[in-house]
């Protein structure tokens, strides 16, 4: 659905995006995460046709965005991080205006308007003035506006900014529902934990480069695979350590009392084989697990130079 190849963006001497590569498949809810200044908004503005890339290509639905601007606009629904609304305009008129902006008029526009209002739970507020809506309602209206022309790809730039936790949760649920309906969603945030709950894939960007990308399950598996095996034995710690040292897949071990941390490069199946060997050698193994790492820890590790900023942002929340 979305493919970014070697995307670069320079503002004078400053490189905002440095050969960024990224891919979002159809039907995915992709979390685009990174600390402030990492290049998230720049990437999203280029995808949405609001900024010209210095070099590189963006493909949406197989089309090069630099050559098919009109088609691109029809394929993308954009929700910016900060946005304003028009005064002296009703909710229904606001959506009808944007429907007309995409060439949808008359009854088709009215039915689409009601459809998207129902989707975001604002149908009852359709006769209200847009500027009298609460911040949360305005955010939902902005989402409804982005859906009015049935885009295939929804691009949301830190949409939860300034919302209270309850509204954020409801907003996330709406996004999950939209994803289940078949929309492909790209959502940026600096709060990984919130996105990891709803996203099917994530991409971590730092200093204009994609440092990690993939499906959440696969990432978790790969993180765990690089973590040491934590083996606790009831006794015979030295014998267990000796047995482990002899295994070619164990690269390093460390021992603390009856706990052994072994860096094991094997697969899940080879892990099970190792456990069997230990048990068959008569070593009383009381626990045998991979050290757990959260996505959050990984995020901090990958964006280490920004750690202090990130911690602050974690607390301030989307």
């Amino acid at each position: 659905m979305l493919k970014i190849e070697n995307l670069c963006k320079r503002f004078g001497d400053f490189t905002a995006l440095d050969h960024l590569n990224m891919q979002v498949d159809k039907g995915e809810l992709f979390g685009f995460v990174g600390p402030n200044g990492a290049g998230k908004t720049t990437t999203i503005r280029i995808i949405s046709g609001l900024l010209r890339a210095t070099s590189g290509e963006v493909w949406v639905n197989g089309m090069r965005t630099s050559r098919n601007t009109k088609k691109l606009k029809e394929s993308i629904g954009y929700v910016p991080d900060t946005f304003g609304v028009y005064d002296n305009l009703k909710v229904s008129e606001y959506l009808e205006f944007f429907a007309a902006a995409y060439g949808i008029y008359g009854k088709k526009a009215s039915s689409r308007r009601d459809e998207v209002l129902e989707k975001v739970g604002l149908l009852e507020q359709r006769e209200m003035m847009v500027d009298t809506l609460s911040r949360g309602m305005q955010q939902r209206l902005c989402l409804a506006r982005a859906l009015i022309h049935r885009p295939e790809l929804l691009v949301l730039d830190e949409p939860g900014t300034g919302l209270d936790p309850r509204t954020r949760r409801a907003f996330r649920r709406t996004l999950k529902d939209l994803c289940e309906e078949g929309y492909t969603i790209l959502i940026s945030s600096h709060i990984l934990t919130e996105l990891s709950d709803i996203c099917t894939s994530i991409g971590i960007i730092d200093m204009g480069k994609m440092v990690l990308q993939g499906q959440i399950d696969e990432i978790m598996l790969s993180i765990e695979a690089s973590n040491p095996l934590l083996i606790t034995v009831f006794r015979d710690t030295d014998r267990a350590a000796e047995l482990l040292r002899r295994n070619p897949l164990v690269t390093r071990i460390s021992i603390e009392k009856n706990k052994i941390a072994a860096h094991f490069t094997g697969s899940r199946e080879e892990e099970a084989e190792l456990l069997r060997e230990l048990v068959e050698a008569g070593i009383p193994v009381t626990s045998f697990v991979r050290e757990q790492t959260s996505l959050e820890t990984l995020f901090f590790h990958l964006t280490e130079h920004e750690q202090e900023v990130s911690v602050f942002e974690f607390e301030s929340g989307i």
Partner: protein
Amino acid sequence: MNLNPVFDKEIKRNCRSMKISWIVFGCNLVLGTIAVISFFGEGVIHGYMQTDRYRMPIRCYMMMSYALFLMVALLIPGITAGSISLEREKQTLDVLLTTNLNPWKIITGKLEASLSMVFLLAVSAMPAVALVMVFGGVGFLDLIALVALLVISGIFIGSLGILCSALFKRTTLATLMAYVLLIFFVAGTAAIVMIASHINVLQNEAAGLYDGRSDIGGLVYLLLLNPFASFFSLLSGQVGNGREMLDICNAFGDYSQSFVVNHFSVFAAGIQLILSGGFIALSGALLNPLRKK
């Protein structure tokens, strides 16, 4: 036929705004006051049906026409200079640019909305201005020509305002620059012509010619860019002797045979419309986020 969505939206918003009602009320109050003073002031004192007072309704028409032009010149830059910059300041522009509306359509929608304001003013002023038709001297076609030139001036001044709005990010700066540019086109062009004439006279005197006449050649056509000059020329044709503009131009050379000067208001309106097209195209280019810098 579907309306330009931007125009449609602006009209809806304007209709609900009290600002427009107050502007129309204020303009008509000014025109009404001019009419009342003319008819019930001067007329009652001197007797407006007397034959020697026949120019009184014509003067009233002139005053009302100039008042209308002044109102358009004062209001339109203020309205149009915020058309793009306010969208930018209110953070609604980005969303607008991601829709299927191209920058050209956004700009024309904004211009149409500000022109509707000129139309509203001109049409609402019709009853007051038409008072003079009772006494003759000004016909219906004259009124139509007046409204047409007001609209053309509105397009010119409005496109100037929109260009400033696209060029400058802050509305206050855009508004200031729109008025500065308008002053340049109204007073600046006249000043350039007069300075050039004065330099020409000085050059003639240095060459030993002391007749005080000047000939600035084609520079006089700079006045075609002056919306006030075109308006003055139209009114001169309607209620004057029709030679006032030619006399002014002849002060800077001999233009008696100039086809352009003899049809000044038509050419000025045409050139101002062409220039407006240029301003709008430039605004559209400035608004395009994907333009090459």
